[in-house]
């Protein structure tokens, strides 16, 4: 949390401290074992390959903070990629305008999720499971399952391939969105409401907070950034396909939860999410650079296996640390002075 609050320190510092340790361990290990791991090119490569999932994780975080979930962001990425192709190739709209239109469609699709969840009070898991299929199905219907859009303008493709100050463009985009989300969550009343809703939706309502509007905001934001990720994806692969972003939603959720955000809502930081994204990105890319693994071609399989293990160990470790802290607190409370009125 942005304030120096001992409560949040004890509650949140732990999972992040563990993650930082894991990240450093990964970097040291792959530097020693991996081929060409410690190069600027490889670093750029890691950023390129994880920017889209990273973006989705950043907007998944506020949703999970409110106690919700969005399974549809990966499918929406696919739909937006295809729509961007339609806008540029079939409707012959200029690229900047097509990109803007794609972002609007993404936000509207997020609004559909948010509207169903808050308007009809349906569970987020069910609504976004529905739109998960709906968005992907639409994308496949538009491309009839086979068509891909290619030949985008070079200026647009630069988004996926050029660097500025050594960092790929999408890396800068990720940083910008991370800062924006972090400010939103930790420095504004929006984030405060997300947290209150995550801890107790009823309690937030009794405090007069605009609970439904705040919840809807998180899904609109997710839709908008999913569209942004679709543009990045299209620029990186130089093509727009209906299967773009398949399974990304689960990887984004993994990064958020790994980053210390409670799946039950209320607890979490954007910084933790960034660390979670970095841990997964370095792990999955680094494995492919170990000669023995690269030779067998099992890098991505091993990557998802170890990501899963990391998630479970991080959560188990967090629970363990919490119970140890609770035990220590109990012991200390025996000697602790009673609270006095502040005068």
């Amino acid at each position: 949390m942005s304030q120096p609050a001992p409560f949040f320190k004890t509650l949140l510092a732990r999972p992040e401290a563990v993650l930082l340790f894991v990240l450093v361990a990964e970097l040291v290990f792959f530097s020693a074992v991996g081929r060409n791991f410690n190069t600027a090119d490889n670093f750029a490569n890691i950023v390129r390959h994880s920017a889209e999932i990273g973006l989705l994780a950043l907007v998944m975080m506020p949703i999970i903070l409110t106690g919700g979930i969005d399974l549809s962001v990966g499918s929406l990425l696919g739909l937006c990629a295809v729509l961007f192709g339609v806008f540029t190739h079939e409707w012959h709209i200029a690229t900047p305008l097509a990109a803007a239109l794609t972002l609007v469609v993404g936000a509207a699709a997020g609004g559909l999720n948010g509207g169903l969840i808050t308007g009809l009070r349906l569970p987020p898991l069910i609504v976004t499971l529905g739109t998960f299929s709906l968005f992907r199905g639409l994308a496949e219907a538009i491309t009839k399952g086979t068509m891909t859009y290619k030949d985008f303008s070079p200026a647009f493709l630069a988004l996926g391939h050029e660097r500025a100050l050594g960092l790929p463009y999408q890396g800068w985009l990720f940083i910008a969105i991370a800062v924006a989300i972090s400010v939103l969550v930790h420095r504004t009343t929006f984030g405060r409401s997300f947290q209150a809703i995550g801890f107790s939706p009823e309690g937030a309502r009794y405090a007069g907070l605009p609970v439904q509007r705040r919840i809807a905001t998180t899904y609109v934001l997710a839709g908008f950034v999913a569209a942004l990720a679709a543009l990045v994806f299209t620029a990186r692969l130089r093509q727009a396909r209906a299967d773009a972003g398949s399974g990304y939603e689960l990887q984004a959720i993994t990064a958020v939860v790994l980053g210390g955000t409670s799946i039950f809502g209320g607890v979490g930081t954007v910084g933790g999410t960034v660390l979670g994204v970095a841990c997964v990105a370095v792990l999955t890319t680094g494995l492919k650079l170990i000669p023995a693994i690269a030779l067998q071609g099992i890098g991505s399989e091993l990557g998802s296996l170890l990501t899963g293990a990391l998630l479970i160990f991080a959560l188990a470790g967090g629970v363990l640390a919490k119970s140890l802290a609770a035990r220590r607190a109990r012991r200390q409370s025996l000697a602790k002075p009673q609270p006095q009125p502040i005068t």
Partner: protein
Amino acid sequence: MRALKEVSFDLHAGEVHALLGENGAGKSTLIKVITGAHQPDGGRITVGGVEVSQLTPARARALGIACIYQQPALFPDLSVAENIALRLEKTSAWQRVRWAEIARRARELLQRIGAEIDPATEVRELSMPEQQLVEIACALGAGARIVIMDEPTASLTQKEQHLLFAVVRELRAQGVGVIYISHRLEEIFALADRVTVLRDGESVGTNPVAAINEASLIRMMVGREVSAIYPPAESAPGEVVLALCGVGCAAGGVRDVSLEVRAGEIMGLAGLVGAGRTELARILFGITPADSGEIILHGRRVAVASPRIAVAAGIAYVPEDRRRHGVILEMPIAANMTMAIHPRLFPGAWLRFGAERALALDYIRELAVKTFGPEAPGGSLSGGNQQKVALARWLATQPKLLILDEPTQGVDVGAKGEIHKIIRRLAKDGLAVLMISSDLPEVLGMSDRIAVMRGGTIAAMLPGHSDAHTVMAAALGQPGKAAA
């Protein structure tokens, strides 16, 4: 706090024994002890002349003790016969289901209590009283000798009540002992053989119904001294802040409520549990908006459709359920205190941690909240201090009308006195206060006027210096007889 103190209670076979008492007098606790849900920490329980120790729910059932609750706990998708069979039969997993036997037994049990219900009906198609009858049939089938009925008529119509009474009389004729809990005095006189009154966890007395009248029953229920000392009223009520004209909400069971609360006035809202007091507060705060009538605040009609609108209009509500609604336990005290004033304290939605901390420290001082500091989570405080945080959140909104729902429930004596002083001070400063309380001495000691609710509407409007007897009589719906 002891919920029960040395209560003696006996029940004969073939008797209806009524149990009467105010909210919190210990009726529920006594029932929990009898059904084995709670372990008594002293005394003896004897069933059929045999002393039982270590009563558990399972052993209580085996001894023939059954409890019929207001909300029957049946499986709605199964038939009546299946529900009865599930309760009664100890079957192994692979035993064949004998449908004919199950239906025959259900029909027999339902006939025994004179209920005309087809055993093949799905329970979801039954009305509430019919479901209660199924519960009673289950109890009989399990060989119950003692049947406890906890306010069984609370949601019944007149006709359904008569049906239920007939069943209770039938049970009595068959030699079953019935413990009958009700707030409705007329039922007790119509049905019971003896009545025991509980007050503050103690038995005030057991009398044959034939030897007692309603007035003396009410006296037994309330007859205690106002022990706590309440701060004296200092304010003279000013202009009308809140006026309600025929306000109702079908979903909340509130109808045709009209009252006025003035600036500087503490209006006590008394009544029994289920009389519609919290429901009225929820209407005023926009949680379950009114569907009829007018809410007028400072002469202007307000459509309170949501808590946000209520807050904007200057209505503040400190809810009854502090831990679920009043305070977010996981969040810091400061965040809790500023939660209802985000737009004012944080212009442009930017959090200002310095201003928040300063405001929290002010209220911590002003209300003497015992805490390590504004960053401590709400859950780290005692009940009374949590209540002060909930109060601070709403005082920060500078409301015109403050609704307090059981402001001192579960609060220790010291904090209770402090909260009373705070409420008085607020009234003196010109706030209109609507105070819901089940604590009769509190209502009497704090209120300038007392509105008594019964059956979802205002049953009586009494002056603040009324006595406990009058208020309780109005809450029970016996104003004429009680005054005699």
